[in-house]
């Protein structure tokens, strides 16, 4: 029992694990999503691309972060919260 408890505590402490969160990136406060856009972290590393419906699966550690969205040469920023929940979260891209 103690071993199990130690295991659980250690798992939680070392859990910098990435979580698969799903986002739909919208063009500002409009009802239009941004398809086929490249999503990058601030350091330029590519997270992925949105699909035809503006959706993207993001594997990053829990927490709030700002990422860049590049749509047809225009770079916008998006603030998103990775919380490990499986729902499709709507986020807005802004200039």
């Amino acid at each position, binding site marked *: 029992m103690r071993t199990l408890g130690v295991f659980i505590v250690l798992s939680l402490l070392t859990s910098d694990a990435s979580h698969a969160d799903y986002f739909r990136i919208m063009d500002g406060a409009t009802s239009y999503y941004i398809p*086929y856009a490249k999503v990058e972290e601030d350091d330029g590393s590519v997270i992925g691309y949105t699909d*035809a419906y503006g959706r993207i699966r993001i594997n990053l550690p829990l927490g709030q972060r700002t990422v860049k969205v590049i749509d047809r040469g225009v770079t916008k920023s998006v603030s998103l919260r990775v919380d490990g929940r499986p729902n499709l979260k709507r986020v807005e891209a802004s200039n």
Partner: protein
Amino acid sequence: MLNDLSPMHTGSAIGLILIVLGFVALLLQKIYIGAEIATPTEIELPLLGKMKANYPALIFVFLGFGLTAYSLTKGKPIFSQWLVTGFMASDIPEINWQDGRLVVIPNNYDLNVESRSGRFTIEIDLEGTKTLEDAVKLIDYSHPKGSLQIVPSVELAAKKSGKPSKIVDDLLPPTTRNYRPIRLEPMPAN
């Protein structure tokens, strides 16, 4: 737009300008009087016979024709046809793959998705020595229930460095890419 001009277009444009300049020069020409015989200079040309003219104007015209002809024959771009194939897989029962959309970014290529099997084929004509990875940034399949993506340059780099790659390592022509079955990433509904 200027960057899109091929050598063929450039050569043809210059040739056309030379032809026009040459004809203008011929129309406005001064007839040069031969110093010794005091008559207009005559030139005998093969096939065309004799003509009164001056050499500079003629040179423009013939140079223009020559340049245009050369550009049209030698400057023709060579295209190679690429074939990209693969399969999409999903745990969603009875999924109709044609409910989704397969797109190549940048687009304007022939795409086909088989509704039951999830097999896809893409035919792309690429100019010169361009490869699939040079021309295509992203292959995306989006279905209301999920999506999947292939970044060709990433997959080829992984294959070349011996890392796991979606490219099937079989003996195919260099202008072919065959991808392993790729699972549709289910997307939650709103």
